[in-house]
């Protein structure tokens, strides 16, 4: 399966991927936010979405995730999806393990414990999110995302507002988890180094005449060995 050399308003039919996005337009109160935006993501591919602040990256992500349904166009989504939000978005009244098992109803205690171990949270199973540090809460959000074996992982600036050391640790952890589970991944970031390190392709949202569109060229990166290893 190839990756389109150009991405933008004018293109042929969408490729068959884990997700196929074909947005015609998105408006907020009469103001055009997104113009025609179409792309697909192949299994195992990691796509970074970059662009200036306020251009509509998070809006696009919310449409892709199915949170925002007020738009013109079509999205073909896979059955198993997961999302890592800017904030951990955990259930503070449930224990760490119950946060996983409440979201993924069929998840056994052993599988939940395994998912927590993968993110370095062994021994924290019965603690409430409020008892965990900021970094541990982010790890728990990652564990929740990967516990459901998602076909598509969506991340909205997952390392924002972390100190440099924690951000680096989380970046490495995310990199390993993606390499191990190999979901198709779409993530928004402002940091070029994050995009280049995690992504196999970078899409850029740029201003267009009727809302933001994807830039006419995209950066492609060599598929790193650890991404192809599994």
């Amino acid at each position, binding site marked *: 399966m190839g990756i389109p050399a150009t991405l933008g308003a004018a293109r042929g039919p969408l490729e068959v991927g884990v997700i196929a996005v074909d947005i015609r337009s998105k408006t907020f109160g009469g103001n055009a936010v997104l113009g025609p935006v179409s792309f697909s993501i192949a299994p195992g591919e990691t796509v970074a979405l970059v662009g200036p602040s306020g251009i509509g990256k998070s809006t696009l992500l*919310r449409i892709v*995730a*199915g*949170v925002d349904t007020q738009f013109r166009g079509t999205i073909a989504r896979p059955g198993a*999806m*997961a*999302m890592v*939000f800017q*904030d951990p*978005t955990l*259930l*503070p*009244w*449930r224990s760490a393990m119950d946060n996983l098992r*409440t*979201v*993924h*109803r069929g998840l056994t205690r052993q599988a939940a414990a395994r998912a927590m171990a993968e993110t370095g949270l062994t021994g924290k199973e019965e*603690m*409430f999110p*409020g*008892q965990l540090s900021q970094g541990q809460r982010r790890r728990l959000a990652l564990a929740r995302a990967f516990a*459901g074996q998602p076909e598509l992982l*969506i991340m909205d600036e997952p390392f924002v507002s972390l100190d440099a050391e924690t951000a680096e640790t989380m970046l490495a952890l995310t990199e390993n988890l993606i390499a191990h589970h190999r979901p198709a991944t779409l993530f928004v970031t402002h940091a070029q180094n994050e995009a280049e390190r995690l992504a196999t392709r970078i899409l850029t949202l740029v201003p267009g005449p009727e809302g933001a569109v994807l830039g006419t060229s995209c950066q492609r990166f060599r598929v790193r060995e650890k991404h192809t290893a599994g």
Partner: protein
Amino acid sequence: MPTCRFIPVLSITGLLGVWITAALLTGDPRILPMPFDLVPGFVREISSGELPRHLGATLVRVLWAFVLAMGLGLALGLAMGRSPALNRWLDPWLVIFLNLPALVLIVLCYLWIGLNETAAILAVTLNKVPGVTTVIREGARALDPDLDAMAKVYRMSWYVRLRHVVLPQLAPFVIAAARSGVAVIWKIVLVVEFLGRSSGIGFQIHLYFQLFDVPMVMIYAFSFIAVMLLAEWVFLQPWERRVARWRWA
């Protein structure tokens, strides 16, 4: 400094002190008897079975009205808090019912339905539903949109979402509504019984009011206050501690 545990006991002892002082100043046990003067009458009413019978009748009405008002108020408040369109339609109704005097609703229910249990419980329920709805609506408006988004992305069923995402966020509002609900409902039940029932604490208070028997009025009133305090300590406070335990962990 007394430990927190004994503060409520000391507080009630203080209230008894005020009562005794007022009784001494009044000097007429027919107007305001001493607390211990009520004991023989209380024992007599208990042993005759009259007090338990009327207490039970009132308690059943309070429970019915409480369950109905909380259920309806929770559903309506949640729906109105989540749907601005529905809120625009129902808000004027809510304002009307909030400002409708309890007595008017009680009288109308008795006139339209008759002097029976259905009318009594419906009148109390209708009086309390707007209050519960208002509190729950505020809670529903304050629901975290990020948790809502998370529930959507992970495709949680409506039941799981309601139980694990929505209701825990609404818990402080539900507890506040329940606590004020119990306090208000039993007072309205007494008025309902006073006006149109032949059993219950309100009926007995009506009876002894006509006989100008202040001690008996106080015996029946305090008996039910004691039951309500017990409900607060045995059910409401432990429930509140349970749902909020994650905050103090």
